[in-house]
């Protein structure tokens, strides 16, 4: 049976590994001739590492309630992302400036627009405490 400490450690190191993977991807993209996108990824990875250091291991521990809140937040953010994608597709036909946009800009924008609702919903459900 896993103890709380070992689960905390596992969650924390998984997050650190994900941060390292993002930084390495950024370096690879940078060296492949996309310095702007590469530096963006490196900055995101460094920011995530800084946050994990600041908040510590306690923040990464998930009990049943926080896991449930995250699932609910993920579902709501998924619907929000789908709606954002549908709107972009609809406006891509109507507004030429959106239709002619670079694909990376669009995908980056949608990812960002999808991630913000996730953070807000996650915070909201954890704060409300009725995620069961």
């Amino acid at each position, binding site marked *: 049976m896993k103890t709380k400490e070992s689960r905390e450690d596992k969650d924390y190191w998984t997050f650190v590994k994900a941060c390292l993977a993002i930084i390495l991807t950024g370096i690879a993209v940078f060296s492949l001739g996309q310095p702007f996108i590469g530096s963006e990824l490196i900055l995101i990875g460094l920011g995530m590492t800084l946050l994990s250091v600041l908040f510590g291991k306690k923040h990464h521990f998930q009990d049943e309630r926080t896991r449930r809140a995250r*699932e609910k937040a993920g*579902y709501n953010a998924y619907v929000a992302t789908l709606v954002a994608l549908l709107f972009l597709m609809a406006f891509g036909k109507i507004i030429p400036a959106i239709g002619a*946009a670079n694909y990376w800009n669009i995908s980056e924008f949608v990812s960002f627009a*999808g991630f913000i609702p996730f953070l807000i919903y996650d915070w909201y459900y954890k704060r409300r405490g009725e995620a069961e």
Partner: protein
Amino acid sequence: MKLKENKKMLLMSKINLALSVFLLALASFRILQNIYEGKPYYDQLPFLLFGLALLITAYMNIKRFKAESEGKTIADERSRRVGEKSGLFAYLLLLGSLIVSGLANSIFNLRLEYTSTVYVILVASLFSWIIIGYYLDKKGEV
């Protein structure tokens, strides 16, 4: 009273089912016509998606109303949780596929047009949600 309401809703769902089949047939016909004439067929895809969504919703509703009229419950807390859990996985897959396709487009200079690419990603994401939900439902450890 509830049985009466259920009967009305069942009739409504059957009408929706018929409408969705009609919409799907029309959209498929238009897509095939556009492909045959060499025109872009992406404009018809929303009708196809809408028809599919309507078909699935009508089918699920018919199943639910029939079960309710027999006194059974088919959607409980567990099935709602399955939908939310599969939604989280589908969300992560959607974000991952968007970032990877965007990176691949920039690095390898693929010149992807976003409306057509996003269509593919959107449909794949919806199907992944359904498939993951089905898997989690069958696994039964939610």
